[in-house]
């Protein structure tokens, strides 16, 4: 993957909330076809960076340039959140799972395909009358949902409410839902949190599969074992600044990273850093 080109270029990203600086002049590149991990102690600004990339926060400084394979470029910092998902094709999951709990697993995946489905229904009007290409579009959408349910091992639960799934399954469903939007970049916020080792191993395979099919990943994760196993490239953040980046082997050998991670324990990091942006 050495020849991979840049997919997302983050330049001088800064984010402040009132007086608190959550991100300060962070620059990195995520390359196409790779899994890029963002690591760092709690409060390092990882989720804040994600929120900037996916349009939930407007960065105070810096630029976020996303380039599609066909050469089209998107300046994410200036785009409204829903267009980042729709046009720039950046999908995400959430640290605190955000499923449509009162809807079934299948419904969750169909809502994810709302944009193409809506186009096929003539903005909803034709479908009421049973006209248009709606039926075909829905069949197609259900087929895609079924595909992702199989890959995330949720097919048997398709008609159960999402809120009734066990924790690990909810995490997988969130990934499936994000994938149903056909993203070029999938941002995962701690996908392995709360999973048991067996589930984590399955997640490894799922993420690699997604990458190999051409969707690049950006990953926040605290499970270092998993990060080292799946990542092609790692970015280390600490106190809102970039500490370093490189391949897993390079990161493992970087004394600054070791100091940040091992030199002070997590409690201290919690204490010193501003709360990780909500």
């Amino acid at each position: 993957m050495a020849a991979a080109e840049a997919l997302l270029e983050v330049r001088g990203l800064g984010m402040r909330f009132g007086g608190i600086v959550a991100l300060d002049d962070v620059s990195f590149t995520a390359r196409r076809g790779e899994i890029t991990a963002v690591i760092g102690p709690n409060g390092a600004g990882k989720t804040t960076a994600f929120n900037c990339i996916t349009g939930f926060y407007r960065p105070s400084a810096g630029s976020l340039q996303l380039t599609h394979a066909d050469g089209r470029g998107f300046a994410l910092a200036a785009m409204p959140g829903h267009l980042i998902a729709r046009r720039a094709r950046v999908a995400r999951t959430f640290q605190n799972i955000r499923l449509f709990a009162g809807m079934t697993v299948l419904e969750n995946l169909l809502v994810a395909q709302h944009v193409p489905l809506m186009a096929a229904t003539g903005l909803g009007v034709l479908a009421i009358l049973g006209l248009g290409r709606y039926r075909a579009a829905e069949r197609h959408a259900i087929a895609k949902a079924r595909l992702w349910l199989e890959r995330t091992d949720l097919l048997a639960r398709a008609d159960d409410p999402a809120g009734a799934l066990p924790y690990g399954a909810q995490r997988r469903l969130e990934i499936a839902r994000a994938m149903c939007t056909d993203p070029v970049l999938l941002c995962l916020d701690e996908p392995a949190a709360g999973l048991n080792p067996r589930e984590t191993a399955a997640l490894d395979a799922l993420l690699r599969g997604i990458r190999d099919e051409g969707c690049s990943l950006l990953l926040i994760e605290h499970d270092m074992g998993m990060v080292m196993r799946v990542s092609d490239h790692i970015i280390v953040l600490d106190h809102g600044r970039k500490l370093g980046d490189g391949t897993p082997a390079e990161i493992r050998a970087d004394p600054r990273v070791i100091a940040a991670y091992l030199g002070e324990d997590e409690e201290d990091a919690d204490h010193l850093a501003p709360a990780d942006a909500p």
Partner: protein
Amino acid sequence: MRAIFRLPPGLACMAGMQHALVESGLDQDLGLGWRRVASWRITRGVGLAYALQQLINGVTLGMIYGLIAVGYTMVYGIIGMINFAHGDVFMIGAFLSLIALSGLASLGITAVPLALAITLVFAAALAALYGWTIERVAYRPLRGSFRLAPLISAIGMSITLQNFAQVTQGARVKPLAPLVPGGLVLTRAGGFAVQLSWMQITIAVTTVLCLAVFTWLVTKTPLGRAMRACEQDLKMAGLLGIDTDRTIGLTFVIGTALAAVAGLLFLLYYGAIDFYIGFIAGVKAFTAAVLGGIGSLPGAVLGGLLIGLIETFWSAYFSVQYKDVAAFSLLAVTLVFLPTGLLGRTDVEKV
């Protein structure tokens, strides 16, 4: 220097609209009657005096709204519900005041300060009992339940109180002879006297005293601390050993006592009440609370003053009929630009 005196865009637009409407004669159709006030603009001195008088009247009205709004905002801050029955407790407070004043008069207690003090305590205490009971009966069983259930329950309570007052006290408007007539003439200009009535002074003094006591209660006492803790995080406050049910109950008690004071002041100021005053005043006060930033106590008072002022000035310069439209429009415009009101916390959206 000119820039300083430029109207805010919204007002400038309204002024332009007014001009266009008057030109086209449509204002008569709309019943706006702007020409009514044209005569006051003949001389600048009169214009200023007239404006000063409106300022005094507006602040008086705004104080009454502010007192009611504080109750809305407290309840909202602590349990996040719109207490629709609050305006009706204000109405009950006005009736209790009327009953007390009439009772005292028939007992021969006619010294005004004494009668007012007794009435104030009586109305505030009994209205607080209403507030406590309402919370206990209609809201506490719904705590932690579905968000809209307490809202509907509150609407039900509002209907109940309105009709309770109608059934028990009759539907007729109840008049009260002015207790404190007269006032100060601040200034005269071209035959127009700017008056500050004793009643307005009474209202201002009472409001300021009540708000001072209230501020002390919220900032300096253990109860106030418990209330602020509950406002921050009800569940956590409970885990830390605060009796949240009791705190919420007391929040209602304080809020409704203030509303009853407002009821007394309303009765004194307007000299007439009926069972329906609660709805209008309640909606206005709630508007004031939202305008100021719901959950913010200074915001509630500020919002009340603003609503009082805009209503008074709009009635004085444009049209009485559309004063509520002006107040509501001010709210809508403010919320479009400041989605959490003037002094509301603009919390970062949690993702």
